[in-house]
């Protein structure tokens, strides 16, 4: 690699030096010399703003580089076909970057199609070369191998010669459209039938929704439907799955059958999305596999909490479970849940409770992204589960216990190894009422504070009926003494009776008004009808 110091040298008063201009010309010559750099007639623009994400004409790229300068840390032009040469600071990044260099061409082609990207990203394991990697390579375990085979099968081009669409990417796109716009199954089938007529002969588009769904099913994106009691008293799950008669509250499991229905329909269904497969996917995809160990590899600044892994609770957990913390690929999870109304806040009250798991292994920019927040279950409404949320959490807790003790054999694409993954739930995050439901410490009454517990001076407001934590003992300028209060009680009682009378009067007046209005209306109608008659 020749001297690249010209790329980031300061320019006086915003003017570019001659060697910079020559360098940019050299860069353009170098890039245009390699034909695979071209995508849609343009090359990647490495300027400070485009950051290799846009494909532009070479003249535009020259203009960008002259006005904006190169993006940071781009001494090696690896996205433009240059081989990655490690120097001292880049040694640890060598594995990941050679990967990206060798696959940059494919990535470049996919840029317009995020679904293709998704598939290609998972597929990279079959194409990548990690010969620099010193660790012994292993074949993926049976489950992972089956998954990769499936992926390979469904990644066939849509028709022979099609470059930018695969069987899987098209189905994923149409599924998204279907769910976004509430398309019916019949509507889906019609559109697919039409699309198959347009596409060239011998295309591999699934003929209907059923076959497309069967293709997607083995990827593990599905969910289980578990019947539950509408009063949240039990799940028909595991040993109770066969029960048709209720055991506790007396509410039947199925709706009464009306006539010709063949199947039983349950009153309420819990949707449970298994978490293990999705956690394993994190290690099987190239892009995420290198980030999942971030929580141990990043450098923490003393006295600054940048990530939950810097805090006391995390360190305590690690010290208590050295076996767990020794493997940086073990997953730490957080759980959060809250009720919301999916039908908008102004319609009928409905409280549906999604339970979401977050992966704290990932770096800050990723761990709070929607794609890495795993929806684990949806507890249906219309009422909130209140303290019986535990009943609904049962499948999740069972799976978490399995993930801790019996573990899951996972294939790590980065190191080309199989390893046993474990997962631990670190904590839950809720708002105050949900805190009460999850923890078991009721959030109502005088003992609502889970820290003060019974050591507080809360009292119940006589009229509001709520607990007040406004301490009585503190002598403040606007507090009255106890003797004063006893004097006031009689006065207040008089006031209250007055208030009731007032309310009574107002109500009566309103009724009177209403009745007169109706009377007028009636008399009007009578007169009108009379007129008509005449």
């Amino acid at each position, binding site marked *: 690699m020749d001297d690249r110091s010209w790329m980031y040298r300061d320019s006086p008063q915003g003017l570019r030096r001659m060697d910079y201009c020559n360098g940019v010309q050299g860069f353009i010559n170098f890039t245009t010399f390699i034909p695979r750099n071209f995508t849609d007639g343009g090359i990647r623009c490495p300027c400070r703003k485009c950051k290799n994400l846009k494909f532009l004409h070479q003249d535009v790229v020259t203009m960008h580089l002259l006005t904006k300068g190169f993006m940071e840390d781009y001494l090696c032009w690896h996205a433009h076909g240059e081989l990655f040469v490690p120097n001292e600071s880049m040694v640890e990044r060598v594995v990941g970057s050679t990967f990206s260099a060798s696959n940059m061409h494919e990535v470049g082609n996919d840029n317009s199609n995020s679904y293709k990207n998704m598939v290609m990203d998972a597929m990279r394991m079959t194409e990548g070369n990690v010969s620099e990697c010193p660790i012994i390579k292993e074949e993926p375990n049976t489950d992972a191998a089956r998954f990769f085979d499936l992926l390979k099968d469904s990644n066939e081009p849509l028709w022979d010669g099609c470059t930018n669409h695969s069987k899987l990417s098209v189905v994923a796109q149409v599924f998204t459209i279907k769910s976004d716009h509430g398309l019916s199954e019949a509507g889906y089938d019609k559109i697919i039938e039409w699309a198959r007529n347009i596409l060239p002969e011998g295309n591999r588009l699934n003929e209907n929704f059923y076959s497309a769904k069967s293709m997607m099913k083995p990827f593990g994106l599905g969910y289980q439907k578990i019947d539950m*009691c509408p009063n*949240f*008293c*039990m*799940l028909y799950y595991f040993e*109770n799955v066969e029960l048709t008669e209720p*055991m*506790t509250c007396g509410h039947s499991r199925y709706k009464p059958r009306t006539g010709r229905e063949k199947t039983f329909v349950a009153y309420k269904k819990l949707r449970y999305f298994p978490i293990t497969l999705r956690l394993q996917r994190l290690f099987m995809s190239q892009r995420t596999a290198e980030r999942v160990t971030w929580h141990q590899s990043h450098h923490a600044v003393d006295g600054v909490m940048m990530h939950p892994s810097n805090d*006391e*609770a995390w360190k*305590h*957990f690690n010290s*208590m479970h050295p076996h767990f913390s020794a493997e940086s690929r073990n997953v730490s999870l957080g759980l*959060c849940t*809250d009720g919301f109304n999916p039908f908008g806040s102004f319609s009928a009250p409905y409280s549906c409770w999604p339970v979401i798991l977050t992966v704290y292994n990932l770096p800050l920019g990723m761990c709070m992204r929607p794609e890495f927040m795993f929806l684990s279950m949806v507890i249906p409404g219309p009422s909130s589960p209140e*303290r*019986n949320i*535990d*009943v609904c959490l*049962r499948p999740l*807790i069972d799976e*978490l*216990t399995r993930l*801790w003790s019996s573990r899951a054999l996972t294939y790590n694409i980065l190191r080309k190894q199989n390893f046993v993954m474990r997962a631990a739930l*670190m*904590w*839950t*995050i*809720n*708002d*105050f009422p949900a*805190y009460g439901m*999850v*923890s*078991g*410490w*009721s*959030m*109502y*009454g*005088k*003992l609502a504070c889970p820290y003060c517990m*019974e050591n507080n001076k809360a009292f119940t*407001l*006589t*009229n*509001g009926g709520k607990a007040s934590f*406004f301490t009585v003992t503190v002598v403040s*300028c*606007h*507090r*009255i003494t106890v003797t*004063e*209060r006893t004097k006031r009680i009689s006065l*207040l009682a008089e*006031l*209250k009776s*007055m*208030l009731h009378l*007032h309310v009574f009067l107002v109500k009566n007046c309103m009724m009177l008004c209403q009745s007169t209005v109706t009377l007028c209306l009636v008399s009007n109608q009578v007169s009108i009808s009379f007129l008509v008659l005449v």
Partner: protein
Amino acid sequence: MFGLQSGKHKFPGFGLTHNWVKRSIFWELPYWKTNLLYHNLDVMHIEKNVFENIFNTVMDVKWKTKDTIKARLDVAMFCNRKNMELVCDGLGVAKPRASFMLEKNAQLLVYKWLKSLRFPDGHASNISRLVNTEECRLFGMKSHDCHVFMQKLGL
């Protein structure tokens, strides 16, 4: 496995020495007892609730204000605030205006000011769009907007 029937199932001493209603299912996780933190509170969510309650009370939003007749009765019961107590003049009961409550003109001024607010890109959502000056209400404030309101705009 089985849920609790609300109201019936109570441990002895509930509400007096403790507030436990159940043994949380998380304790069935084998490592849960070694955790230092079990449950966390979502501070942004609480900040939103606090903001909404203060704002609705100060702006005297109907059905949303916490300054109700019952609250005034309690004030008379426990506090030494003569100007906040309900006034009984023989015909009816009147609720005197509280000192922290804004008058109608002042409220309108606040809403007009909110309507004209402009923020830098990405700082908060466009609050001027969330104001309904006719109904004197704020709609659709996200928790981050409430945070900006509390921290930057001052309340």
